[in-house]
């Protein structure tokens, strides 16, 4: 449905690109990245707000040189950007003056019911809460019947108590209103709940792109793994491989300790460096060949092993739990 080829943009010292990716119709695509990684700039480039190099196609139609008003892409900014000179109803139906929208009244009623905004329709936008503004901004974008809906951190200014309800609504939008969604966020939880596909973006580059589960559980590079919060990232040589520049990671919950040398593929002699007691588990830092492993040990296991700082023991990991990158 959407194809982006070698998208490139330079703004001051920041460079975006060259980015290439494709998105299927009616899918939910999440771009996950830190603040300042160029996510909003990418959305603005797709919307035609920024002048770019490269090509953008939507349903095989070339979009690259079209102005924003000709692209039919909806945009919801992080701070919602509701027009202050109009009330809620006027904001939502703004596009009807400029676009031919079929069954306007039915669509408005459906949106109002779907997003639960009937009671605020005639209110001034300045009196709305963050969650209400967010729903109005989404309704306004959908009312214009966009082929592609671009959401820029739409949940970051919403009260956490309403976030789950809004996330559920967002997930339903693509199919209900026959659109495709690109959602930008730095929140892994949002990404994992909403996305069919995820792209990880750092410093203006897309580092990994794929199905939600694949990306979140199997980072392909060291940078992605660090960004996704993977712990215990070490050089593959520790496992006996001779692959310079290749790394592996192991979940702190999957690390086991023993005083006996168990016959496992990856069993290392270690020295307990530091122990920190947390409510239901212990954080144990163990040194293996000058590398520090971090493990989460359940309380009952910890008490059974009687791990103490300075003690020597064996640390072992199962091959199936290792994430290679």
């Amino acid at each position: 449905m959407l194809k982006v080829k070698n998208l490139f943009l330079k703004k001051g010292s920041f460079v975006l690109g060259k980015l290439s990716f494709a998105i299927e119709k009616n899918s939910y695509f999440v771009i996950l990245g830190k603040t300042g990684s160029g996510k909003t700039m990418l959305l603005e480039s797709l919307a035609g707000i920024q002048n770019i190099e490269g090509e953008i196609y939507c349903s095989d139609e070339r979009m690259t040189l079209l102005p924003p008003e000709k692209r039919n892409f909806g945009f919801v900014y992080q701070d919602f950007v509701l027009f202050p000179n109009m009330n809620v109803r006027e904001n939502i139906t703004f596009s009807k003056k400029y676009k031919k929208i079929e069954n306007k009244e039915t669509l408005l009623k459906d949106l109002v019911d779907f997003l639960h905004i009937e009671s605020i329709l005639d209110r001034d936008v300045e009196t709305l809460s963050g969650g209400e503004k967010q729903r109005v901004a989404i309704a306004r974008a959908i009312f214009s019947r966009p082929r592609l809906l671009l959401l820029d951190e739409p949940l970051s200014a919403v009260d956490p108590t309403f976030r789950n309800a809004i996330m559920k609504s967002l997930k339903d939008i693509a199919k209900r209103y026959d659109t495709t969604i690109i959602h930008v966020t730095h929140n892994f939880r949002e990404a994992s709940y909403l996305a069919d596909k995820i792209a990880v973006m750092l410093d203006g580059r897309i580092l990994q792109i794929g199905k939600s589960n694949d990306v979140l559980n199997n980072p392909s590079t060291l940078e992605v793994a660090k960004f996704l919060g993977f712990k215990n990232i070490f050089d593959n040589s520790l496992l006996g491989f001779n692959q310079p520049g290749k790394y592996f990671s192991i979940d702190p919950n999957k690390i086991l300790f023993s005083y006996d040398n168990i016959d496992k593929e990856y069993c290392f002699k270690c020295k307990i460096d530091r122990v920190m007691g947390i409510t239901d588990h212990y954080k144990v830092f163990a040194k293996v060949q000058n590398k520090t492993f971090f493990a989460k040990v359940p309380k009952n296991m910890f008490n059974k092993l009687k791990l103490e700082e300075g003690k020597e023991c064996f640390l072992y990991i199962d091959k199936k739990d290792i994430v290679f990158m």
Partner: protein
Amino acid sequence: MRDRGFILIFVFLSSIIVLFLMVPLLKLFASVGLFDIVKTLQERDVYESIFLTLKVALYGVIFVCITGIPLAYLIARYEFWGKSLLESMLDIPVMVPHTAAGIALLVAFENGYMGQIFKYFHIDFIDTATGIMSAMVFLSAPFLINGAKEGFKKVDVKYERVARTLGASRMSTFFSIVLPNSKNDIINGALMMWSRALGEFGAVVIIAYHPMVAPVLIYDRFNNFGLKYSAPVAASMIFVSMIIFLTVRYINNKKGSHIRTGELATFE
């Protein structure tokens, strides 16, 4: 009262400037009296002169609305070569002596190639309403342009971007989003320009002694007949302009601004 000392000092200092600005006006009204103001306003010379002043100043404001608002938008929204220089040059008319501005206008528009072009189109500046308007515009346009510029800067560019993704063209976005959300600053700028233009004397008197605008009439009466005959005209002019000024500002403020500029404290 928590900040009593601070508030008292500021109120005291503020009252000095308020008195300085208000006393001459109040004294003028008190010495002339409402009866004489109404009587003066019925004199043909006076009402024609005041009407001419109001009318030409309004034409000037309309001219700058059409040409200066686009300029203000370009300055507010774009970075371009020579922008700082352009902004400084726009403020120069406010600084130059007004009689010098009148001379400059005559040199520019009555002589040389430009003078010939204007003459070809039968546009004269000396002793005409056009000349008066050019003097008024030259010296007061910066008030409207700067007001509009500040108004545009307050409107987040993202409003325009969203409006365009919703199908509005650049022009439609300007009229449906940018102008309504900056109208308070533009109206205030227009009022400032208009009121500044009403009082323009130095440049006008160089270009067009006749037809007489109100400030020239006041000067003329003062010169020929003294304070007694010029004061009622001055009071009448101030009275009429104040009524118009306060009415427009009241309507504008009543409609309210959509852009919030911050919460105001109350005296505790």
